[in-house]
């Protein structure tokens, strides 16, 4: 076997940087500031993006077909590395808030990014399962990292129990798919299934695999962990769960549903559509009465998973391209919002929505970031989130799933309501204290660039949508 090392050079980079961070952390004096380690991680991620772009022409499979590098995996790896950079920066701001802070927090974030990169490249149920569990175990540790806070450890434990239950379902489903086809590699499963009738093993496997994967994307039936974990986990980790883990869940869902099971698409469209519609209803309706902003964003994230599942249910190039565009817009909206939440928490020590009253008079930039970020999540023109939702709805309409499109449109209106409740507090209510909130220079630059990115995706989406549609074709090459 010849191994083409160029295919997984970025992964090697990230692994090296993560271990170097752990190594330096060991020799640093106890209690000293560790922000340079985060900077090192950011440099490593930038280097990995560079390597990815230089080698973007090098595609193919390696390691006995376990690992694939194609347009989709390159797109998602860049997305994950960008997420990683923002999260590392957020963690740097969070450092003072944690007692006995250790540099391994930064290394764990890099490991989580690494796991997501492997998920984007999985081409076999074995590598899918192992990389998925790698991400899960890393996130269990990260979620309960502030172990002095009882909410954080409680969140970690709940995340672990539901996560392990879901991966049990996933694995049981994989077993039956393996039993039905005799293979675990996606392209050969697709080849074996072409022109085959639906069998009992196949149906059981399909239902269990999809059920298991709903945990990662936080949709029904495995959505129960999201509110508690989003609320209890340290805020940078919540942002990682919201932007990174969800995108990683969708890349493997796309690979399984389109590449491996694409040839039996008529059998699973209804199943996915029902999950999508019920997730949309639950997420958006349950977000309304929430008092904590992280908990509200958790329910909004469940709602987003419902939208993204519409793209999976469409099962077309248009559908998967719009999933990718949605995740891109979602990354910027989520990272801006969470950066604002971290800065606000550092200054005020509170995550409750009521504490945001009068923010526009205390810090116009934070208020504007929340305004743009939340309205992009709600899907208001001319922001990135609007274009993304439009494409997803267009994709399901094109496949004839009118009822799903109707649910999507109605729930977009519901989403507007709870996001506008926050914006009303930020802009219209008077502040309790009138002190301005201090924001550093780098924070300001980062907030500005994230907001501009969201605006560009909304005002001039043409090149980006063309790009993702071109990439999405790769997924359907097998059929």
């Amino acid at each position, binding site marked *: 076997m010849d191994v083409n090392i160029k295919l997984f050079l970025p992964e090697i980079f990230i692994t090296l940087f993560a271990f170097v961070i752990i190594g330096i952390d060991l020799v640093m004096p106890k209690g000293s500031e560790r922000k340079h380690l985060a900077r090192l991680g950011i440099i490593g991620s930038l280097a990995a993006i560079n390597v990815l772009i230089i080698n973007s022409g090098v595609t193919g499979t390696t390691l006995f077909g376990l690992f694939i590098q194609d347009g989709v995996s390159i797109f998602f790896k860049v997305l994950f590395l960008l997420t990683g950079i923002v999260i590392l920066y957020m963690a740097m701001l969070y450092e003072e808030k944690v007692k006995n802070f250790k540099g391994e927090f930064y290394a764990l974030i890099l490991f989580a990014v690494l796991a997501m990169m492997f998920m984007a490249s999985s081409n076999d*149920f*074995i590598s899918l*399962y*192992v990389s998925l*569990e790698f991400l*899960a*175990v890393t996130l*269990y*540790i990260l979620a*309960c990292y502030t*172990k002095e806070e*009882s*909410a954080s*450890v*409680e*969140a*970690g*434990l*709940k995340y*672990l*129990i539901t996560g*392990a*239950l879901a*991966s*049990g379902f996933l*694995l*049981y489903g*994989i*077993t*039956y798919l*393996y*039993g039905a086809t*005799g*293979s*675990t590699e996606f392209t050969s499963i697709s080849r074996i299934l072409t022109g085959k009738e639906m069998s009992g093993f196949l149906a059981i496997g399909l239902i269990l695999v999809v059920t298991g994967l709903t945990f990662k994307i936080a949709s029904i039936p495995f959505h129960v962990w999201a*509110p*508690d974990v989003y*609320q*209890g986990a340290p805020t940078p980790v919540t942002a990682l769960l919201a932007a990174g883990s969800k995108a990683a869940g969708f890349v493997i869902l796309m690979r399984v549903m389109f590449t491996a099971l694409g040839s039996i698409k008529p059998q699973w469209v209804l199943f996915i559509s029902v999950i999508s519609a019920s997730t949309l209803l639950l997420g958006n309706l349950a977000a309304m009465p929430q008092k904590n902003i992280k*908990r509200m964003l958790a329910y909004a994230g469940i709602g987003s998973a419902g939208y993204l599942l519409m793209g999976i249910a469409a099962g077309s190039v248009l559908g998967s391209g719009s999933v990718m565009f949605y995740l891109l817009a979602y990354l910027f909206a989520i990272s801006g919002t969470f950066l604002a939440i971290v800065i606000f928490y550092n200054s005020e020590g509170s995550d409750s929505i009521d504490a945001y009253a009068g923010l526009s008079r205390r810090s116009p930039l934070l208020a504007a970031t929340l305004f743009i970020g939340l309205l992009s999540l709600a899907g208001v023109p001319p922001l990135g989130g609007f274009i993304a939702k439009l494409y997803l709805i267009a994709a399901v309409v094109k496949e004839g799933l009118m009822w799903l499109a109707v649910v999507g449109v109605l729930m977009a209106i519901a989403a507007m309501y709870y996001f506008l409740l926050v914006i009303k507090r930020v802009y219209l209510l008077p502040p309790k204290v009138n002190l301005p909130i201090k924001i550093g220079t780098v924070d300001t630059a980062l907030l500005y660039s994230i907001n501009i990115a969201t605006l560009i995706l909304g005002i001039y989406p043409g090149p980006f949508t063309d790009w993702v549609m071109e990439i999405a074709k790769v997924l359907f090459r097998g059929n």
Partner: protein
Amino acid sequence: MITLSHYLILSLILFSIGIAGVLLRRNIIIVLMSLELMFNSINISLAAFSHFLQSMTGRIFVVFTITVAAAEVAVGLAILVAVYRQRKTVYIEELDEMKH
């Protein structure tokens, strides 16, 4: 003569016991044990499929599953210790701080 279905039924029974344990038991240590039971029931069906399909992949998969499940439960026990130090409890219904 023991056929594939015998193994699959055994695996299904163990898997159901595992799920029932996770969902119904109050003690988190027993919940973790039930998770372990679920993973082992899956290993039985993987190995059975591997034997009856005459394919090596399933057996390789079992090795990965065992390793990953062990890592997962090890982290679970560590988190449980952290929970116990704070709350002095291992009962799942007492962990409801964030409902309000």
